[in-house]
């Protein structure tokens, strides 16, 4: 067990993608586009809800050929085409009960030859933070603007 693992409070992924932000943003926010990339091999993705207005629900289901399903769902916080997405995130179990709740922010920044995509997933620090979406959100935003700046 290293200290860095203890210290880690967010998941952060960054990559350069040789496509413009507009294409990536559409793939993320339009249901017909979203299902083209969301499902791993052996799964079929469907979009149950995808309301990109702030406060709008999203829910997607991954269905395996043996009939088992894994759903994820949440609420959109901020949608700024084609640069920025923020939404809450939780896996659901078979009975539809939502698991550990987190916040995800995705930044699509124009870069030479394409887009620098930064995805940050933040675990809620406390029940209070989870119940106070504004605080949970602004902490994520501060962090992301620092890393993207």
């Amino acid at each position, binding site marked *: 067990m290293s200290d860095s693992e203890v210290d*880690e409070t967010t998941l952060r992924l960054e990559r350069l993608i040789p496509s413009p932000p507009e*294409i990536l943003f559409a*793939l993320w926010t339009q249901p017909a586009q979203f299902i083209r990339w969301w499902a791993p091999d052996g799964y079929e993705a469907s979009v149950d809800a995808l309301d990109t207005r702030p406060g709008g629900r999203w829910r997607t289901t991954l269905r395996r050929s043996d009939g088992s399903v894994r759903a994820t769902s949440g609420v959109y916080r901020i949608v700024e085409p084609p640069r920025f997405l923020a939404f809450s995130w*939780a896996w659901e179990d078979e009975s539809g009960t939502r*698991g550990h709740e987190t916040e995800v922010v995705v930044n699509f920044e124009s870069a030479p030859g394409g887009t620098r995509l930064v995805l940050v997933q933040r675990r809620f*620090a406390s029940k209070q933070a989870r119940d106070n979406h504004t605080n949970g959100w602004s902490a994520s935003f501060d962090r992301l603007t620092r890393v993207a700046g």
Partner: protein
Amino acid sequence: MADAPQLDSLFAALADPTRRAIVERLLAAGELSVGDVAAPFAISGPAITRHLQVLERAGLIERRIERQWRFVRVRADALAPAESWLSRQRRHWMAALDRLEAVAAAQTPKREKS
């Protein structure tokens, strides 16, 4: 998936910098008396006690009492649920972004070489 309340309390306990520092100190030292845990921190004894209670409730540390001394240490595998949740989530996004990149590439016009 580990159950959500367990992960919630684990991540909440680790979200506080003082508690994270306590856990790191215990990981480095093994076992310490409560007084030794508190030594480097410029906060009151009751505040340290509260932090230790949060860590204990989250299943991160355990206490041992020997005569008048109280010792604390990190529980073996205490961090495993958080780590396995994080690593699963990381794998999920890595694979998803691979697929996103591939589908986006098929939709991106080839740039003219100048």
